């Protein structure tokens, strides 16, 4: 009965390897930060000087910024594997493919979470938002939302990285599947910004958490089918 520790240990190795590669250059995180900042700025330009409108919809634009960046980030996380046939190397070492999924997906979530935390103060200043329900809750919610993006994101990035027109394909496949968890993230974040008179926050977080469990479970079972080569 050493299955679980082995998977978890393998997942940890993959996670460590990815974070190490990232830490050496920090290129990905830097690029993502500038990209999402530019996205946030673009939203405020597009809407013009109506600051009330920006504040009211801040949660939506914030998550859209993270979502746009996530596509780049997810694509990149498999590009480092497909270059030099590293994915084959990953496949050859006796790691459970599910460990690869857990490690990659968690790494992607952490990356997105860092991004969202770094961009948060800028967003607060730019859109004139007040955080009413506590920063710790917001950070937790952001992590939950990033987990929700990264599980299906990792599965779909693995598919798209090996297909033609991968840059078109990833958002095409990913965005619609993410809609439920994205909607829950946006609503919950909006309630943290605007206040929560009807106590709906717990329901939205519950919905987000359920979709997380659902997609992580499906990804865990289905991911091996994608990278296994028969």
């Amino acid at each position, binding site marked *: *009965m050493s*299955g*679980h520790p082995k*998977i978890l240990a393998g997942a940890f190795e993959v996670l460590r390897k990815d974070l190490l590669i990232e830490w050496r250059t920090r290129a990905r995180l830097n690029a993502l930060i500038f990209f999402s900042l530019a996205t946030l700025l673009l939203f405020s330009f597009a809407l013009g000087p109506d600051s009330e409108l920006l504040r*009211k919809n801040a949660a939506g634009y914030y998550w859209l910024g993270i979502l746009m960046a996530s596509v780049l980030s997810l694509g990149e996380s498999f590009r480092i594997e497909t270059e030099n046939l590293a994915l084959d190397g990953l496949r050859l070492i006796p790691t459970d493919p*599910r460990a690869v999924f857990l490690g990659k997906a968690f790494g992607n979530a952490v990356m997105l979470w860092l991004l969202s935390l770094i961009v948060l103060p800028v967003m607060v200043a730019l859109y004139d938002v007040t955080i009413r329900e506590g920063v710790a809750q917001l950070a937790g919610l952001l992590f939950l939302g990033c987990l929700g993006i990264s599980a299906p994101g990792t599965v779909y990035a693995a598919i798209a990285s090996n297909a033609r027109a991968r840059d078109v394909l990833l958002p095409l496949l990913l965005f619609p599947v993410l809609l439920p968890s994205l909607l829950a993230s946006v*609503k919950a974040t909006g309630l943290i910004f*605007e*206040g929560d*008179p*009807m*106590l*709906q926050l*717990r*329901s*939205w977080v*519950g*919905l987000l958490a*359920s*979709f*997380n*469990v*659902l*997609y*992580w*479970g*499906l990804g*865990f*079972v289905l991911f091996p089918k994608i990278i296994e080569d028969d």
Partner: protein
Amino acid sequence: MSPDNRNRLIAVGALLVAGAALAFIAFGQIGDNLVYYWSPGELLAQGDKAYGPTIRLGGMVVPGSIQWNEAHTGLTFEVGDDHSATAKKVKVQCDQVPPQMFREKIGVVVEGTYDASHFFKTSRLMVNHSNEYKPPKEGEDPKQWMKSLAEEQQAQR
């Protein structure tokens, strides 16, 4: 246990967890709170907090409350929680042409703002049809209610 069996067991376990999550979404009562619209009672319970933001209000059109002004361009009516006399009611001011189905005692959803004047101002009035489909009674014209309402108005004038 062979590795194959163990793998299968892990897969089944993960799928069970995923299924449980779906079941929770289904039956965990989280939906009760994620409403598309508020009822008049819920709106009034908000007090001042409901003033300002764009919200949706849903309920029944209170019988006898449909009125329009002299210029016949604006429409006001009351939306109640239900048909009972004690139900909470909110006055609605609508500047849009109501859909064909609009009448007394029908479910409506209005999108707009509420303020200290205690009028819910809307330009988007939607009729919430029930899941009942019945033919008109023998000899009855399907749209007679509209004509009868118009005639009533004529008679009142």
